């Protein structure tokens, strides 16, 4: 006999979060990030903790990537500090929904500074992908672009189809910032594949050498 309490208990644990919809999202994280980083020019990239680090490194281990092996919640505001220090360079933060949610205050801090050259892309699979695919708040009605707009971003939009993504790509590269995109991607585990260096001093020194020249 089926246990009548099981479904009710699961619903109670998950609240209004949707457990299934993200499995069918058409956009795939590796293809999205590969397109974001194709012909990147002199763009500076911060990759948030977790799968965005593997996605960026799968494209190329680039000295002007700063992959975060920790510092959860810090990617967007790290991009802010970098964007203000380098106002003539495009700064792109690529992070995940769980990482962004841990530092939502960063949206307000960025909205208050309004750097023209900062773009933030959240690859949103509605999951904590590194810890067993538990649902995040974005599996419910939470609307990250609305939050970014309310915080003072110049523009913010959600993307859920390939057509929308292709149409947005030029703006992600060059629109006036601060600009924010939340790209709904399929909930799936990609193989980690290539990893960037783990040593933080190496990552910092090679980034500064590539950007600023020899120390």
């Amino acid at each position, binding site marked *: 006999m089926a246990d009548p309490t099981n479904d009710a208990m699961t619903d109670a644990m998950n609240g209004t979060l949707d457990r299934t919809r993200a499995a069918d999202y058409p956009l795939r994280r590796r293809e999205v990030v590969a397109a974001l980083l194709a012909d990147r020019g002199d763009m500076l990239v911060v990759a948030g903790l977790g799968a965005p680090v593997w996605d960026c490194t799968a494209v190329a281990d680039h000295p002007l990537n700063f992959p975060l092996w920790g510092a959860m919640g*810090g990617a967007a*505001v*790290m991009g802010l500090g970098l964007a203000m*220090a380098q106002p003539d360079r495009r700064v792109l933060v690529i992070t995940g929904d769980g990482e962004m949610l841990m530092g939502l205050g960063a949206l307000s801090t960025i909205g*208050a500074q309004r750097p023209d050259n900062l773009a933030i892309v959240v690859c949103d699979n509605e999951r904590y992908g590194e810890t067993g695919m538990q649902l995040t708040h974005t599996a419910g009605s939470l609307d990250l672009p609305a939050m970014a707009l309310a915080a003072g971003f110049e523009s913010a939009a959600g993307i859920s189809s390939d057509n929308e993504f292709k149409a947005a790509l030029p703006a992600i590269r060059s629109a006036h910032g601060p600009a924010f995109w939340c790209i709904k991607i399929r909930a799936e585990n990609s193989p980690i594949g290539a990893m960037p260096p783990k040593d933080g001093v190496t990552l910092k020194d090679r980034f500064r050498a590539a950007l600023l020249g020899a120390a």
Partner: protein
Amino acid sequence: MELMEPTEPIEPIEINWTEAIFSVLREWRVRQVAYVPDAGHSELIRRCDGAAGMRLVPLTTEEEGIALLAGAWLGGQRGVLLMQSSGVGNCINMLSLARVCRFPLLTLVTMRGQWGEFNPWQVPMGQLTPKVLEAADNLVFSVDDPGRMGQTMAAAARMVFEGPAQAAVLIGQSVIGAKSFGK
């Protein structure tokens, strides 16, 4: 007879310690001044506001400042992070970023719950502040005599920016003045 608590504030010694801090920040060409405000920092924040080449960055929580200033350094700018002692507890995990990558991090902490505190809710974090920072491998400089502020700031800034190192200057309540209720 009604028992009254003494309400006179404990006044600080009059010396312009804020200017001593500001001139060290100038010498090191600090560009990004990130803060969660505290009454003890209010004069320094006013001093930095509009100073040529300095940009004030108000934060929603203190750990944002550690990531912000890491980004600033990647882009070639120095920064400073201002907070109250209660904010140090918010920073613990993010301090790993500065430590593992050896980002220079200069934090100025105005103390509460340390000396003549009227609000017992400030005491636990105030007493934990130096222990927590030391546990996170920050260098800790305590200033309880405003006449030592300039020297201490200069020493801390040199170790931070030439190290690089992570260091906190704890500005004691004897410097700021321990406020009493309503003051």
